């Protein structure tokens, strides 16, 4: 900057005026900032646009009856009750299978594992499990649960497939939650003579439970939206279920095939003709709404947690 020639008069007028080089730098910085902002907005705009389009187009279909009615007349009419209940049971089943294993695996990685090659391999396995394509998880589900474990195409097989697929979500978030508990908490507990497990149960887990919960909620949202893994392991196009009474709340046993909201949307769009646009958009809005509400819950919980943190 100092190398820029300046007339003595100008320098005397204002010593701190930007030199041409500095002005050029400011211009460049402004351009860069604007370009980066534009790039970010290009990513934000689709989210807003998509939500707006979906909502506007789905508006005529959305009603309580749409949610509570079963699909009728080869799915061209009626609502989405049966797939919605199917998704609920799929999520519940996969959660029951994945949450204990995932949380304990997170505990192992953060509390028990030493920093050695074996732990590194486990970490690599977690990353890879998260990176395996969903359709390969489906093939695994067919090979392992449907055929080898002899479950057949059933709710149970689909739940197991979803559980394996969403396991990494719970493992990584549990680990992060546990890692945020200060080491001094554990040391204090150890000094009182508690074993490692007693420390984890009484100190580490209670202090990180909401963080773990955040991961579990994320798992729910992932499991609710997935289609490919349940396509061949348990979900089917159509299952007739009871319209009324308590049976409409428990339409599927663990060995039954079921409907699912994500699969239902896929079916409506690509397999069935004569479905009105409103019904299709309505189904999409309910699915995306469900997932976004669950996700916002997780984000809200995380924000609340940060504000409540005492250490």
């Amino acid at each position, binding site marked *: 900057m100092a190398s820029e020639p300046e007339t003595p008069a100008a320098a005397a007028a204002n010593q701190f005026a930007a030199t041409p080089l500095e002005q050029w730098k400011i211009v460049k910085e402004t351009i860069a900032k604007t370009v*980066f902002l534009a790039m*970010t907005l290009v990513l934000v705009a689709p989210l807003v646009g998509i939500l707006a389009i979906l909502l506007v187009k789905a508006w005529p279909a959305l009603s309580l009856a749409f949610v509570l009615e079963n699909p009728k007349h080869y799915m061209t009419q009626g609502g989405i009750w049966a797939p919605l209940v199917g998704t609920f049971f799929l999520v519940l089943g996969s959660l029951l299978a994945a949450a204990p294993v995932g949380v304990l695996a997170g505990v*192992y990685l953060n509390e028990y594992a030493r920093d050695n090659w074996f732990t590194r391999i486990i970490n690599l396995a977690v990353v890879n499990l998260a990176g395996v*394509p969903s359709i390969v998880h489906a093939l695994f589900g067919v*090979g392992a649960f449907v055929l080898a474990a002899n479950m057949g195409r059933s709710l149970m097989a689909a739940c197991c497939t979803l559980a394996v697929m969403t396991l990494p979500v719970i493992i990584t978030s549990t680990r992060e939650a546990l890692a945020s508990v200060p080491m001094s908490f554990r*040391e204090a507990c150890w000094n009182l003579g508690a074993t490692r497990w007693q420390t984890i149960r009484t100190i580490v887990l209670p202090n990180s439970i909401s963080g773990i919960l955040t991961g579990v909620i994320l798992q729910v949202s992932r499991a609710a939206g997935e289609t490919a893994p349940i396509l061949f392991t348990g979900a089917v196009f159509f299952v007739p279920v009871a319209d009324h009474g308590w049976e409409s709340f428990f339409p599927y046993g663990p060995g039954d095939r079921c409907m699912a909201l994500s699969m239902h949307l896929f079916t409506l769009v690509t397999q069935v003709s004569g479905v009105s646009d409103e019904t299709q958009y309505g189904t999409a809005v309910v699915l995306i709404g469900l997932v976004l509400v669950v*996700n916002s819950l997780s984000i809200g919980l995380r924000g609340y947690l940060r504000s409540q943190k005492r250490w």
Partner: protein
Amino acid sequence: MEDSRRERDGAEGGAGQADSAPWLCRFLGPAESMVAGVVVRLCGYSAILFVFAILFFVLREAAPMLFGGMDLVEFISSPDWRPSSEVRPQYGILALLVGTLSVTGLAMALAVPLGLGAAVYISEFCTGKVKETLKIVIELLAAIPSVVWGFISYMVLAPLIVDLTGAPVGVNLLNGGAVLALMSVPIIVSVGEDALKAVPDSYREAALSLGASRWEVVYRVLFPAAKNGLLAAVLLGVGRAIGETMAVLMATGHAVQIPRGLLDPICTLTATIAAELGETVYGGPHYRMLFVIGLVLFTITFFVNLIADIVVKGIRNGQRA
């Protein structure tokens, strides 16, 4: 920390228990800890177990075709995928592979600049509420289920593409690439932002104190310092794009051909499995070939993730040294 842990192991079940505890507790405490330790360890190993289980079970279904009955040369080099041909079924994955690579390439061409640009903006150019909001928006973008993306591409984007370009069909390479770009952007942004955040503030301060502008800090200091993390972000995005199934199935038109232009419908490895597995006869050659494709996909994504991991670990080791 390592030492204190080792001491803990020695003390487990030892005299550490309070003397005043009832005898049952004295017994149960260590026993519970032992059992819990075993269970926790088993769960910890489960990730490895599942990765091998995926490989094993997919391989088991693919094996009869893979180790006999399969023309490997045709498999790799032929663009003809005619599994249900009465005369002579052909299983060439070249067209599918090119389909996957072209749609992934197009998606990355869009997503990498946008994703890294957004990562830089979020990490370096904004603070406080704006930053938090943008991060949440990106997170919500990641939460949209893949079948909804497929729905959007099929119902909204496809007619738009037909209107704008006059293409005969709206479900094509361009549509798939655009949707896939939006789907893989969140992971690029979040991993890229982490990589930028990992650069020590002293680097920024040093550059700023020498009179560098914010842009020069980004361009001359942060990009070189965070290049491994940014590369890992891109690789994870690639892995995500290759593995994506439902959106691609609905957006790309499912036509087995090597694309010659942006507006050609294509077919990918993932979409082929999703579209055809339901129609195959169990145990037949077509069924087994789909598992072979699954194995190919598993291998590709495994190596992409492995390289990303090595790249990330590379930086960590470098920083420690």
